């Protein structure tokens, strides 16, 4: 380190930091020479703890790995268990799962909009986004009994059927949110301030994105139509029509626009699912969890979470507990190599901007 460089600690106690995460920056003036991501503040060793609990006891663990969007975590774990135990899921449960996953994607994207708008100082938009997220949490509370952590998706289906009148409530919510889109656009997405602050910030090329393991909107923002819901459809995604929005520039502006377009697609998916929702059972009985041995084997399953590819490598040795669980979380790649790469040469005032536009969630990195 030369004498002109200065070491600067960004987080975990920093106004621009979203969550328990820190970055050590070497700066020269206002320019970042080198950045080192420093995770570990939320490392609870979930993957190891899951080896001590049986297949069903692990559900309250997996959802805690992503606070903002716990349902995709439950989904990927349930899918892996179903694959190893060869359970098939009733049609109605698959549709309900899709509705829940898309609602939680909406909630997560709204949370992301809150963080980004808040960072830019556009507090009105931030409060709108947070309010709509809260309406989704109300729906979750009615359906599953919990607002943030749900423990609703289980191997073989979902825990309970939709309550009476739930479909109408979801529709009313979607209509309210849809009616608000022009105002969101006027105040935020088409705002000159947003354009000036986000255009060209945190730019990544297509080759680098692939090389460094980017997924989700980081890949879609460089023009690649990569979406696991299309490539390897799970739940009821094969039966609904939707587009995969992309942008070309690979900067923060493109990423946030991809998120905006994705929210519209999510709303459309939910409406289609509500329309097509078949009748029938919502779960298939599974054996007593304490006596449930799953045949030896391994499986890699993946879902498209709101942040990108969420994968799970699950190994069973034939016992009633997992032998090894390894989550491939999107933030692990976005938050360490890609963030370090994008921060090099950036301005100090853009650190929060780049980090939020990559959608980094600290508990997903640490696990």
């Amino acid at each position, binding site marked *: 380190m030369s004498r002109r460089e200065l070491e600067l600690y960004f987080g975990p106690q920093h106004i621009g930091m979203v969550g328990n995460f820190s970055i050590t920056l070497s700066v020269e003036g206002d320019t970042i020479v080198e950045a080192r991501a420093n995770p*570990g503040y939320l490392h609870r060793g979930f*993957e190891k703890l899951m080896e001590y609990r049986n297949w069903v006891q692990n559900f309250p663990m997996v959802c805690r790995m992503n606070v903002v969007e716990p349902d995709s975590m439950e989904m990927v774990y349930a899918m892996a268990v179903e694959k190893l135990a060869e359970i098939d899921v009733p049609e109605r449960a698959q549709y309900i799962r899709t509705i829940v996953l898309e609602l939680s994607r909406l909630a997560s994207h709204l949370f992301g909009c809150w963080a980004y708008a808040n960072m830019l100082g556009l507090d009105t938009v931030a409060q709108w986004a947070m309010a709509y997220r809260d309406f989704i949490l109300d729906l979750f509370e009615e359906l599953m009994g919990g607002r943030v952590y749900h423990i609703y998706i289980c191997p073989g289906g979902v825990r309970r059927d939709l309550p009476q009148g739930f479909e109408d409530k979801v529709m009313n919510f979607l209509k309210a949110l849809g009616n608000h889109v022009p105002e969101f656009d006027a105040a935020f997405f088409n705002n000159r301030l947003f354009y000036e602050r986000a255009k060209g910030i945190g730019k990544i090329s297509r080759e680098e994105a692939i*090389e460094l393991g980017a997924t989700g909107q980081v890949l879609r923002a460089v023009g690649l139509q990569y979406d696991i819901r299309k*490539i390897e459809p799970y739940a009821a995604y094969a039966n609904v029509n939707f587009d995969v929005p992309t942008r070309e520039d690979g900067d923060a502006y493109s990423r946030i626009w991809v998120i905006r377009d994705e929210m519209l697609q999510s709303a459309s998916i939910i409406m289609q699912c509500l329309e097509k929702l078949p009748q029938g059972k919502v779960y298939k009985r599974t054996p007593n969890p304490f006596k449930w041995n799953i045949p030896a084997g391994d*499986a890699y399953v993946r879902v498209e979470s709101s942040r990108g590819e969420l994968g799970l490598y699950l190994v069973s040795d034939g016992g009633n507990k997992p032998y090894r669980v390894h989550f*491939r979380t999107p933030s692990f*790649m976005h938050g360490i190599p890609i963030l370090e790469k994008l921060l090099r040469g950036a301005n100090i005032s853009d650190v929060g901007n780049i980090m939020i536009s990559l959608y980094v969630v600290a508990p997903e990195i640490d696990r």
Partner: protein
Amino acid sequence: MMGKEIEREIKILFSDAVIDSTEKNRLKIRIKKDLAIYLLEFLKSRGFNYLVAISCVDWIKEGEFELVYQIGKIDDPLRIMVKTRISRDRAEFKSAINVYKNAQTYEREIHELFGIRFEGNPRLIPLFLENWNDIPPFRKDFDTRKYVKETFEGIPTLEESK
């Protein structure tokens, strides 16, 4: 379609490899450790340019660690799982960093949690843990409950410390 083609080529080039293609969109390849990096290089040359993850499994009864490389392609649903086993006593392996750049972070994680050294990886510094001097925590012989008991029951309660 692509899967069949690549499977045939691997069978010719790596005759020792055990290939399991029963599952849809998945190809599981078990290969000896000396050839694993060459197989990764071959896959990359055939367009599988995306390293999704590296997982490690501790098979303590066999005395081995299993490294599982998940390889893919952006516009192809096929996922290739390259599995290789190394001895638990000599926990060393070659780094895949020259083939896939993002292997660096995964290897750093495995180095910390399982204690495997990756030759050629320049930055195997701690990732999550701080001042750790026990055996690597994700190994099967590390007992989390014993660790918690020893670490936290040694801390006196408020009443005791008065």
